[in-house]
């Protein structure tokens, strides 16, 4: 399959793994979903091998529909939707824990969901190398479950914040970020109350040393006070990503842009 990069038309990008710099006259954003019949994937099927994914739903999550829409539109096939009490997780390449307020965010964000039996299954899959993406509450759940280090504390403003931020790609060499160029800055919305990433100094140092920080807020758009402007990190192996911003809410012109699409596009084989 030819290598493709998501970027705005005419934008210069550098691909992280081979450092080639190329000009892309035509990118995904040139595809107008308004012209495409509804429910059809934004990508043509022949362009991609179908990604098998599952979205895990805990009670109180509320961005699962947004996530399902994004995976369907970009991945070309709807994800399996798995209720947290289901004992079977289908055989998939990608497991997604979407955003929301699992168990009301009571006790600590993500704490109660993180202790559910479903998380043991997800942990086993992650250990086998299956990709896991946690967005917003999903990120909080992954840290509470110990799949990712650190914790998400209350925003420095103590207020819920919903706005657009800019993310800088700190590591383009992950399955989640490979459609972006190293150092590329892209737009992405956030909507959360507890996104203030914190870890002790040693943990932060090792995250930085191992290139586990994948996305950072640009310094002037950090919405929550998170340490080192961290917006998203992976585990050491690189197959589990947690991020606070919501790429699923910026994937088509109707959203005012499609900067978030690359994350899903990158996960296609």
């Amino acid at each position, binding site marked *: 399959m030819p290598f493709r990069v998501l970027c705005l038309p005419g934008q210069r990008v550098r691909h992280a793994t081979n450092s080639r710099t190329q000009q892309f006259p035509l990118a995904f954003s040139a595809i107008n979903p308004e012209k495409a019949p509804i429910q059809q994937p934004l990508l043509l099927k022949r362009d991609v091998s179908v990604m098998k994914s599952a979205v895990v739903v805990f009670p109180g999550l509320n961005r699962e529909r947004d996530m399902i829409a994004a995976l369907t539109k970009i991945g070309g096939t709807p994800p399996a939707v798995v209720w947290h009490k289901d004992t079977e997780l289908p055989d998939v390449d990608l497991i997604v824990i979407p955003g*929301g307020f699992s168990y009301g965010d009571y006790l600590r964000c993500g704490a109660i969901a993180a202790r559910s039996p479903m998380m043991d299954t997800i942990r086993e899959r992650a250990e086998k190398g299956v990709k896991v993406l946690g967005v917003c509450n999903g990120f909080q759940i992954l840290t509470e479950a110990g799949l990712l280090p650190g914790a998400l504390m209350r925003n420095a403003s103590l207020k819920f914040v919903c706005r657009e931020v800019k993310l800088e790609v700190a590591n383009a060499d992950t399955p989640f970020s490979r459609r972006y160029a190293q150092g590329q800055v892209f737009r992405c919305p956030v909507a959360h109350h507890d996104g203030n990433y914190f870890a002790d100094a040693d943990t932060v140092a090792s995250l930085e040393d191992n290139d586990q920080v994948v996305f950072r807020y640009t310094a002037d758009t950090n919405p929550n006070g998170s340490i080192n402007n961290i917006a998203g990190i992976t585990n050491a192996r690189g197959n589990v990503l947690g991020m606070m911003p919501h790429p699923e809410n910026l994937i088509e012109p109707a959203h005012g842009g499609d900067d978030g699409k690359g994350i899903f596009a990158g996960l296609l084989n």
Partner: protein
Amino acid sequence: MTFRNDIEITPELVASHGLKPDEYQKILDLIGRTPTYTELGIFSAMWNEHCSYKSSKKWLKTLPTKGPRVLQGPGENAGVVDIGDGQAVVFKMESHNHPSFIEPYQGAATGVGGILRDVFTMGARPIAAMNALRFGEPDHEKTKHLVSGVVAGVGGYGNSFGVPTVGGEVQFDARYNGNILVNAFAAGLADADKIFLSEAKGVGLPVVYLGAKTGRDGVGGATMASAEFGDDIEEKRPTVQVGDPFTEKRLLEACLELMKTGAVIAIQDMGAAGLTCSAVEMGAKGDLGIELDLDKVPVREERMTPYEMMLSESQERMLMVLHPEKEAEARAVFEKWELDFATVGKTTDDLRFRVFWQGDEVANLPIKDLGDEAPEYDRPWVAPTPPAELDPSTVPDADIADALLSLLGSANHSSRRWVYEQYDTLIQGNSLQTPGGDGGVVRVEGHPTKALSFASDVNPRYCEADPYEGGKQAVAECWRNLIATGAEPLAATDNLNFGNPERPEIMGQIVHAIKGIGDACTALDFPIVSGNVSLYNETNGRGILPTPTIAGVGLIDDHAKMARSKFSREGDAIILIGA
């Protein structure tokens, strides 16, 4: 246990239930005996201003409520309007003013929770919310606390529930110093042929309680004083209702799942005066009696009395009438979502509202009369006096640029971003225009081109100067905000916030404002399909500014052609149109 249902009904007790002597006489005439304590509570709930609209009904009836697209006008949990392709938009606005003043976070949160329930009780998935807020002067000692609590509460509930907030209003004026206004709007999307109503049908069918457990939340402060306990009250119990958006979100999913099973005959949200109002409304609308067994009601506190259970305003609860053969299937849905599901009574053919508790009948009342016979007043009113015309010579000279700058920087004209950034405006992935423009726009999921536009407006200072013109203006402004997004306005809901209607000059404001709203809506073919009235809003013995909030919904056929308020390209011409 020292509960008694035979507490003596004294004039003081009657008065503390907000019932006037002649209203109490009406109760005596109606039932031919002294009511029990529980019955007195039931009457006070059904006959208060909030449930009976006794001061405003006469005037509300004059509003235009019909139109070719109106599927359901006022009288249900929310209004329903056809948007084509077999779909309908379901919406309403409701106030939570007094609770928000007492406890701003929980008051506002439960206001949002209540209006969302009104919408999904009818079978619609909520897709948009708005909130119209009015506070006292910015530097009044209470304002800061109230603003931060209310905004956090609106966000805390709506964000967690998962509905995008797409619009609203915030205003400051000294006249709201002691009485803020929190008006919450919600809209949902449903299949036009799958709207659920509250009218019970069929005799001997189970009446089922759904959702969260019942506590003492909101059981009236004044009425609490009347020692239904002996000496075992440990502390003065707060009557604040606490919202639980997590339970509400599960209730939403469970209800929509339940409705698909075909088990639901009628369903009603438990709002103000919870079990009482919902049971009576369902029965009375269906010309049926209702029997409740309070021992079956899920409670979360010990030793709850029938009086308390009937008046509790615990949140996130509903009542439904069910097809008995579907009971197991319906129960399984609620068990999956870990919510209470209890059969608490049945429908009867005797047109009585009978309530049993521990083997005793604690209430036995004529169900239709509880609503139909509620007092209705034609309160005296005087036409508002228009303010004297302003003498131009008294207007101080000011530098226009300075004036403009101070206007732009003033609390009432500055950006509202600090508010709406605390609300999730993007969730569900369908927001095409978020707050900050004229109307909020949300696309209709599953349709390639359609979108809905929402706006909420009123200018209380205009309404104070001239309630009739102010009422008209509120409708016109809402309408303009909708068309400014490229939408065809469909219908509106109103939230009429006024002072004490027993004062003729306030009643005059109400009458004139409703007339103005009605005339404007008629002229614009913009029917009012739902609404809410909040009276007795006073601060330091003076009424608030008359504030009839109008929230409207419009339809955009093709959102690719949607209009926005921002200039989008250099070199475009700027054109001023209008009168």
